[in-house]
Every structure is written in structure tokens, then in C-alpha cells.
């Protein structure tokens, strides 16, 4: 009969035992995280193209300190060092991409340390944090160094860029509005990664197509901004138009990379819609009525706080259960 008999097989190696299911999907935490890093590549490239080599230093600093802090804390708390899962790299990259060009390296490092230390590890590390770590880092920097972090420089290749102010600040504080063209291609002032919509869309669509990022959140945010922003714009056209809302500032960046962070967003489908719409509403309110020119960061952080409640109240109806 056969050359390898069952008895031989049993003698040579133990059969594996485990409970069902015996299949696992091919996705792993590590793979997902590195996909996100890959998706950020166009933004990194465009940041360096637009703002110069120094920006690479800023981004590198952010990444190195994020990863370093995580490794250090894991070592100190005698946990396995798991920085190669890539999530700290994401946090670092994102933080590096949302600080202004020419931001001080010392402050960038401080932001990274805070993002990972207080934004993530204090809650128990990957998977347990309530707030988006990169945004926690950035919010800390904004509160610590509000002047430095709102000082923008014009991109290198700006042919005809609108001063050094970001389009949103220009609109809010000087009443100058920016055409959609420059907004789309990145000839505007702004933080490293947020300026070129094309680069962001490239990576963002990659995330959506591969299924890494959940499409519901960006969809809800876009719809929300169009509805809420559009309503105000119709009431008073001197408010920014929905198009402007979408392409100015860090809306796209936030929608694709930051609001979609699994850990700090809801786990239920309905919850994701509520979360996205909530972000859009708060964003429009801050942009239109607030004292700050940009609100993507704050609106996401604000909604992060609601996530536990959203999860709780959007728990799906159990199959076959009748709601009383």
C-alpha cells in the first residue's frame, strides 16, 4: 500500500490537537499594521517633496521615539517586546505627519513619548487605549506649544501659495478663501502630511480596497460634513463650502488614517456610522464657530470618548430576539 503508514506517521510526529475552528484568516495584527505603514508612504514622500529633507528628520524622530518608548516601557514592565507589530510605527509616522513643517525635533520627540506613554501604554498597550495615541500626542503638543504648532511654512514648490497660513486659518482669521485646485495638489500651507489630497487619497483608497480600514467611518464623515457643512453654507454662503471642508486641512487625512484606528473607534457597524457622523458634526462646529482654525484632531478625540457608550447602545439585536 502506501509508503507512509498511519502508524509510522504517528510515531514520527505528534498529530496537532486544538479545538475548532482549524482555519484562521490570513490577516494578522502585524500585517494589518504594516499595510497601514505602507499606505502612509505616499504621504511621507509628498511631505519630503513639498517641504524638504528636514521633514524626513521630523518623521524619523517621531517614529524612533514612538518605537523606543514602547520598547522601553515593555522592557520595564517585563512584558514581551512587541514593537515589531508596527503599531507604534504607525503612531510615530502619523504624529510626524501632523506636526507643522520645521517643527522642533525635541518637541516632536516629546510628543511621541507622550503619545505612546500616556496615550497607549498606560492603558495596557495595543488594543486597550481609549483615545487615538497619535492624536493624544498631537493634542498634547498643541496644548504645550500652541504657538509653535500653529506656525506654518509655505511648501517649497508653492508657485502661488496663499501666504503661510493654512487655508482654514486664512479663511477664519483673514477671510481669504483658497481655490480647490491648490488644495487638491498640495500647494498650500499645512502640516506635513495633510497638504496633498492626492497622496492621502492614494493611501486611503489602498486601505479601503484591501479592507484594512473600515469604509463606514470615512463614508460617514464625508456624508456628515457634506450635510452639516452644507446646511450652514446654504444658510450663509460666507461659511466654508462642503468642498472646502473636505479638501482643506486634515479632513481626508483624519478620515482615512486616524478616525479608522480600530482601537479607538466603535466595533459595531451602526456605531461606526454614529461615530463618523459625530466627528463630522463636531468638526463643522469647531471650524465654523470655534476659536481654533482646525478641528479634525479635537473632533476625533472628542468622539473617542463616546466610543464606549456608542458600543454599548448600538449592540446589535441578537439573532431572533424581539425588541420589547
Amino acid at each position, binding site marked *: 500500500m502506501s509508503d507512509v503508514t498511519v502508524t509510522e506517521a504517528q510515531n514520527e510526529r505528534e498529530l496537532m490537537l486544538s479545538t475548532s475552528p482549524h482555519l484562521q484568516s490570513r490577516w494578522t495584527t502585524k500585517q494589518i499594521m504594516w499595510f497601514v505603514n505602507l499606505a502612509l508612504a505616499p504621504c511621507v514622500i509628498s511631505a519630503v517633496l513639498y517641504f524638504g529633507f528636514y521633514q524626513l528628520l521630523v518623521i524619523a524622530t517621531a517614529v524612533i521615539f514612538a518605537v523606543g518608548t514602547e520598547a522601553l516601557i515593555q522592557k520595564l514592565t517585563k512584558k514581551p517586546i512587541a514593537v515589531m507589530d508596527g503599531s507604534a510605527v504607525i503612531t510615530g509616522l502619523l504624529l510626524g505627519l501632523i506636526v507643522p513643517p520645521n517643527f522642533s525635533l*525635541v518637541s516632536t520627540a516629546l510628543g511621541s513619548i507622550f503619545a505612546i506613554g500616556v496615550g497607549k501604554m498606560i492603558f495596557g498597550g495595543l488594543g486597550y487605549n481609549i483615545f487615538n495615541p497619535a492624536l493624544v500626542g498631537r493634542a498634547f503638543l498643541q496644548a504645550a506649544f500652541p504657538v509653535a504648532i500653529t506656525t506654518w511654512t509655505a511648501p517649497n514648490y508653492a508657485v502661488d501659495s496663499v501666504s503661510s497660513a493654512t487655508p482654514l486659518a486664512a479663511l477664519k482669521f483673514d477671510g481669504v478663501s483658497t481655490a480647490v485646485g491648490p488644495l487638491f495638489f498640495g500647494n498650500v500651507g499645512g502640516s506635513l502630511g495633510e497638504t496633498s489630497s492626492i497622496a492621502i487619497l492614494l493611501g486611503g483608497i489602498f486601505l479601503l480596497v484591501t479592507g484594512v480600514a473600515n469604509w463606514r467611518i470615512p463614508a460617514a464623515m464625508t456624508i456628515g460634513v457634506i450635510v452639516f457643512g452644507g446646511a450652514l453654507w446654504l444658510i450663509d454662503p460666507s461659511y466654508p463650502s462642503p468642498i472646502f471642508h473636505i479638501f482643506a486641512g486634515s479632513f481626508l487625512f483624519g478620515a482615512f488614517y486616524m478616525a479608522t484606528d480600530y482601537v479607538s473607534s466603535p466595533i459595531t457597524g451602526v456605531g461606526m456610522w454614529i461615530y463618523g457622523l459625530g466627528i463630522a458634526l463636531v468638526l463643522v462646529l469647531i471650524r465654523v464657530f470655534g476659536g481654533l482654525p482646525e478641528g479634525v484632531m479635537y473632533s476625533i478625540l472628542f468622539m473617542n470618548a463616546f466610543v464606549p457608550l456608542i458600543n454599548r447602545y448600538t449592540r446589535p439585536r441578537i439573532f431572533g430576539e424581539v425588541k420589547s
Partner: protein
Amino acid sequence: MKKQVTLFTEYTKGVWDQNPVFKQVLGMCPALAVTVSAMNGIAMALATTFVLTFSSLIISLIRKVIPTQVRIASFILIIATFVTIVDLVMRAQFPALSKELGPYIPLIVVNCLILGRQEAFSSKNTPGRAVLDSLGMGTGFLIALGSLGGIREILGSRTFLGLQVMPNAFDPWLVMILPAGAFLSLGLMMGFLNHMNLRKKDREERELVARHLQEPKMSLEHGEEVKSWS
């Protein structure tokens, strides 16, 4: 001799072992609100200690005549009286400081540290002990507010007690003197102190275990239990 020691610990317990802020989590509002600088923290702590000590004194003096039903009301009345005195004196003599501490001075009235001590201690002890206890708690409060204020001032404005202590190259972290900074600093401080305490406790436990292990009569079951500790 023994009595003296207890009187002494009556004072010292509040300084550290039962520190009102770090250990009992009482009086958090002033601890967070006024500690934008060390000076403010110290002033608030002194004002609180004053109110605490005098109301403790009065309350322990009259503790036997107050009917239990109106206990709390009487306490609050007495406390409020002393707070008003502090407030008026500060407004009259230290207008600048009074402006800085703002409405947080009157709020000493409802500081649960004060009411808590009256309930838990002064209304049950002799005036001498009540005063010592209050002074101890006051000192503990002072340490907490002073250190919190100090840290926030150094990082947030480069100064300590108004004197510049950090180099000019250091960009002050504005966040430290904002509300968020207050919560974060206190949270991190408490976590750090807990960590030290836990470490100490673990070490003591381990020493205890080690001592036990050396004893020959140790049974095996104990040995197994020990393993799970380390």
C-alpha cells in the same frame, strides 16, 4: 511614653500614610484647580489647614453637646464661618493672592477633606488630638499641593516659586498650567507613588516569604504558593 508616640503619629499619619490627596483622594478640587504654581498651592494649603484646624478645635470642644441629627449642619456652619474669615482677611490683606485663588477659597467650605476629618476624627476625639490630626492632614495637603504646584510651575512656566529654574532653551509646556495638565500630572504622580508603594510591599512580602522558606518545617503546599508570588 507610649502615649507620646501615639500623639506623634496622630500628627505624622496625615503627612504620608494617610495623605489626603495621594492616599485618600480627598480635596481633589483645590489640589487640581489652584496648583498652577507652587505658591498658589502653598497658600491654598495654608488656608485649608487654618480652617481645618480651627473648626476641628471648635468641633471637638463642643462635640458632646451637638445632637447627632444636626451634626453635619453644625459642622458646615462652623466651617463656613472660618472660611468666610479667611476669605475676608485675604481680601483685605492679600488682594493679589485672593484674586488668583479666586472662588476656590470659598469652596473650602465644601472640601470633603475638612468635613471628612470632622466626621471621622474631631467629633470623636479630644481637642488636642483633633488639632494634631488636623495639622498633620494640613501638612500632608501642603506637601501634595506644594509638589504638584511645583512640578506644574517648573514645567509650565520654567519657574519655581517665581524664580526661573529652567534654562531659556527649555520651551515651557503650557499644557501644564492648563486643566489637562493638572489632571495628567496628578494622575502620573499618583501612579508613580503607587508604584513605589507596591514595590516596597512586594519586597517586604518577598522577604517574609524568604524568611519562611528558610524555616525547615515549611510544608510543600506553602512552597507552591510561594512560587506564584514571585
